[in-house]
């Protein structure tokens, strides 16, 4: 009974938004769909990933982000939550990226001019059947939509991404 309770406790404590694998697969999919591969192009400033991630994984949130008309009060509240949570998850993102680098799936590189860290996926490191799994169809579509509204995703700076995604929509940003 005791052991059972403990396993229950652990599964109740499960939170998909801060699950390492959840973040990991979304990062990989973003990088893969933006074609940030070694020798081709870079994803400038890894921190952007954690802010893009929620919109890729949830269609409802995506629709809020790509809406043309003004956002409603409750939608701004949702965006605010996304911003704060993303900001708080930056350290997790870092350790996940280090793990992925350690396992040889991507490379992290210091960018002296921009003073940030850039990412590239390693070619042929990830199994094809994994990347092309039917399960990830929705994410790929979401990324394609997102790209249309927020162009040059891999290139723009973190600040301008946050401006576009949150600030311009009425979310108060902690400018540090």
């Amino acid at each position: 009974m005791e052991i059972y309770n403990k396993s229950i406790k652990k599964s109740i404590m499960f939170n998909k938004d801060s699950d390492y694998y959840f973040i990991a697969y979304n990062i990989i999919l973003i990088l893969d769909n933006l074609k940030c591969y070694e020798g081709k192009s870079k994803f400038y400033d890894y921190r952007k990933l954690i802010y893009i991630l929620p919109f890729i994984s949830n269609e409802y949130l995506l629709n809020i982000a790509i809406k043309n008309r003004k956002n409603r009060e409750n939608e701004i509240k949702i965006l605010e939550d996304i911003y704060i949570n993303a900001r708080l998850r930056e350290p997790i993102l870092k350790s996940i990226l280090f793990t992925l680098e350690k396992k040889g799936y991507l490379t992290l590189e210091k960018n002296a001019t921009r003073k940030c860290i850039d990412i590239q996926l390693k070619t042929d490191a990830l199994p094809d059947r994994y990347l092309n799994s039917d399960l990830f169809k929705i994410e790929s579509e979401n990324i394609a939509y997102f790209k249309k509204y927020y162009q040059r995703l891999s290139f723009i700076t973190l600040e301008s991404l946050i401006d576009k995604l949150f600030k311009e929509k009425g979310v108060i940003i902690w400018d540090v």
Partner: protein
Amino acid sequence: MGRLKIEKIMYEGDNYYFESPKFEEGINIIEGENGSGKSTFSNLINFSLGNYVKEFDKKESKVHKEIVNDTNNYVVSIIYIDENRYKLKRFFNDNRIFVEENGEIQDYLIHRPQNDVKIFSDWLLDKLGISVVEFYQGTAKSKLNFADLFRLIYYDQKTVPEKIYKDSRNDRNFISDSEFMRKVIFQMLMGHEFSEYYKLVGELNKKKKEKNDYKIKEEGFLKIASEFGFEDLHNIGLEDLEAKVKQKRLQLQRLEKYEAELLSVNEKPTDSTEKVRQLKKRLIDVELLFESTLNKINRLYKEIKSIENIKENTILEVTQIKKIILTHEELNLFSPNTCPYCLNNVERIEGHCICGKEIEESEYEKFFYSSDEYLAILKSKQKSIDTLNLAIESCNDELNYLETELKKLAEQKNNVQKLIEEVKEDVQRNTNVAEIKDIEQQRYALKGEISSLDQNYKVKQNFNEIEKGLTSTENKIKKINAALKTKNKEAKEEIETKITAFNEIYNNLLVDIKEDINQARINEENYMPIINGGEYKEASVDVPIRLMYFLTLLKMSVLDSKIPFPRFLLIDTPESLGIDKDNLEKSISKLLNDSDIDNDSDGDKAERSDFQIILTTGIKKYPEEFSSYKKGRSLNKNNKLLIKKEKKKQPN
């Protein structure tokens, strides 16, 4: 209990025939060489008692050719059960046995059909005073057959002696063996308490099934009743319904009387202002109800929407967890043993954190999940989708109900409005039409209510019948359970004393056979022999171990006539199994000594013949002093059991 004795066995077909000598009480020996038909002889006895014989089954590969290929063949046996003589006739390839008793012939089926017919085995067990009990093993129901008991009466050659019990019928998909069954066989043969116990178990199972049927009926009834709008049948009392009907009827009577008054004389029209006031009040009431129902409906819509939202999110989460599992399986990135700084794998000592401090392993919440844990999470999410669906369903049910209510209210509103219009006209015409119409409407509604209540009453009545049946079966089950408890205790006590007695005889019989056997008893759980505390493994002694087992059963029944064992043994040549001649002869001479012991103990000659053993064996493979028990001719290659018939010559 009943005693079985075989006097004669005969075989007759178009090509072969055989007639046994007359068998006596006590020991009877049929001797013959291997392959001369000793086993066929045993098989014929076995067959004539309604049992299945593989060698006689055309569908089998190893068959007894002479018999299977013979035509119009049958076996006749003359048997005694207690003092009564019966003639059994069984044709090959027929599912019947003809039993002749006092010149009257009755036929019984051999294989048990679906319905409850008395078959041959039932007849035989009945005569032997053994009750035919029913067993439930899992969901399968089976009845005790004579063939089951015969497994401890017929010592055959084919069974590996270690197994003690003769192999049960096992052809392709028909297997009737289980440890449970073997235990039952022993218990049924050794004690009469057990037969009553199993009878009770059978009854209990029957009642349980009955209860189950009632339950299903009840559920179905409730479901249908609720579809017709009669809910809550459990809580409504018949008296309440009756009182309600009475009250409504009274109201109806009053209305009808009033209506008659209104119609008969038109002296003074009712006060219209008062009437309008009344109707307006009614209208307001209905409108208020209408509003509140509408509110409820709106709230329900909102609730359904939010549940559906949650459901969608949960579905999304389910797909995401599936992706997490895929990623975990394909990339295997994180484990609880990853150093948070260098991200290398750490060899962690069980019960210690990565930092080296002692921790409770299960409290070490790492937030890394194994595949199993992810799957468990996935399952619980999928389950919550089911729950949400259920919630949506019940909301929809309520919604439907409220919407019909709303419709009714709208109609009422409409009716009241119409009545108000009528009153206005009445005032102009100085008539009573509105009042009359109102009464009519009320009367109509009342009648509807009464007829629905009447139906409800009938439904409730029927429901009560089912409930009554259910409680009475439940009570019966309780009673049987109580009886079963005491019976179980009695049966256990009985079998314990029987086992003690069995052990004493068994031990005495076996220790003499070989000097290195110093203790023999049976396991109290499964009744299988334990020799020298389980350490004795000499395979060549397996035959005497089994043979003495059968003999002990026989001896017990001779000593205590209350024991159901039918005081009959059929033993088929154990000598071919590679045991040494010494052991066999010793075992066989035990048969003789055994019967002698009885004589010595009470000096009563009659005791000696209170059993029958039919034994087939090799030529002279038995002790000298047994030669007087030999019956009939010796069988050999040139003098087989079955004798070929001379072809009849055409009459000149």
